[in-house]
């Protein structure tokens, strides 16, 4: 669930960011962008916590030649 929410947030963040870059200023788009920015940051923390063991192992384990 966390991963899916993270993916959704990332998608909205990316689309709104690119849209804002090319289009005229829109207050609504700006609010979407920073709302999902906050959401993405919060969900990313949960995602890291949920996957911390795998992440630590990945960082510790030497890469196979």
């Amino acid at each position, binding site marked *: 669930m966390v991963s*899916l929410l993270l993916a959704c947030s990332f998608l909205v963040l990316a689309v709104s960011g690119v849209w804002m870059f090319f289009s005229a200023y829109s207050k*609504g788009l700006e*609010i*979407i962008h*920073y*709302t999902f920015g906050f959401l993405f940051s919060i969900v990313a923390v949960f995602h890291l916590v949920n996957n911390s063991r795998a992440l630590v192992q990945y960082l510790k384990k030497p890469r196979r030649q």
Partner: protein
Amino acid sequence: MRASAIVILIFSALLVVASYNSIGPFHFLSEWRAKYKSGLRRSVDKMEYQIYDCSDNLDPFITIDFLKGAHFWHPQVAIWIESVEGEYIKSLLVTTSTAKGIFYGGRTAENFKDFDQHKSGSHDEVRRVNALPHWAFTRNVKAKDGLYAPHPDEPLPDGITGATPSGNFRFFAERHVPTTLDSFVVKMEINVAFDENKFYSAYDYLDDDAYHSGTGLLGQPSLIYSSTVIKQNPSAYYLMELIGHGHHSGQNGAVYNDLSQITTAKEIVERILVKMNW
């Protein structure tokens, strides 16, 4: 598709709609962000605005906000105050060369841009004809050589003298601001050298020695901007208006209202704002 995925997609969609329409908490989030950002201190880019601060943070004080135009180039400037009847009261700011009556020799139409960027004290100093005639004749102080521009032996005081502006500038002063008058006129005269056009070129005014022998006066004449400040309007901004030009070789202090022969000089200034804090 799993139920949790559907819930998340619906949640995301609702969040997008609510954010876009600034509903409820999103409106407050937006307002809070605007307030937070407006409270941030921003440093003024010194490259963008030159500051002439002749004030001691006391009221009343005057602020002049000058935004340069496309044809701005190291101008001579005088800012002064007159009564509404046209009587000279006080100079607020005069650029150094005019205030001291000294100009560098060797500055020509061909080299003046490079000269201005690399000038040093090694050049000969030359007494110059009147670059700001309306200000000089309104001030009405005749120098010992007969000109109305200040003489090197009788320069203006340092308190009202400033370096030639290199771009946009803000000027603050409270000294000499008249507090007893209900209204007064703020004037600015500005002149850029070598801004020739088809009406003011090396081929015009051939019988006018001052026009051709001055160090840098060749070109369009000075321009005069004016604004009337009214005390009953305590915190208003006034836009200075272009009211005319000075004599092409500084021979008199008249304001010539016909601006049909002035071309690029009209773009020395983008706009000038005057603000009075009583």
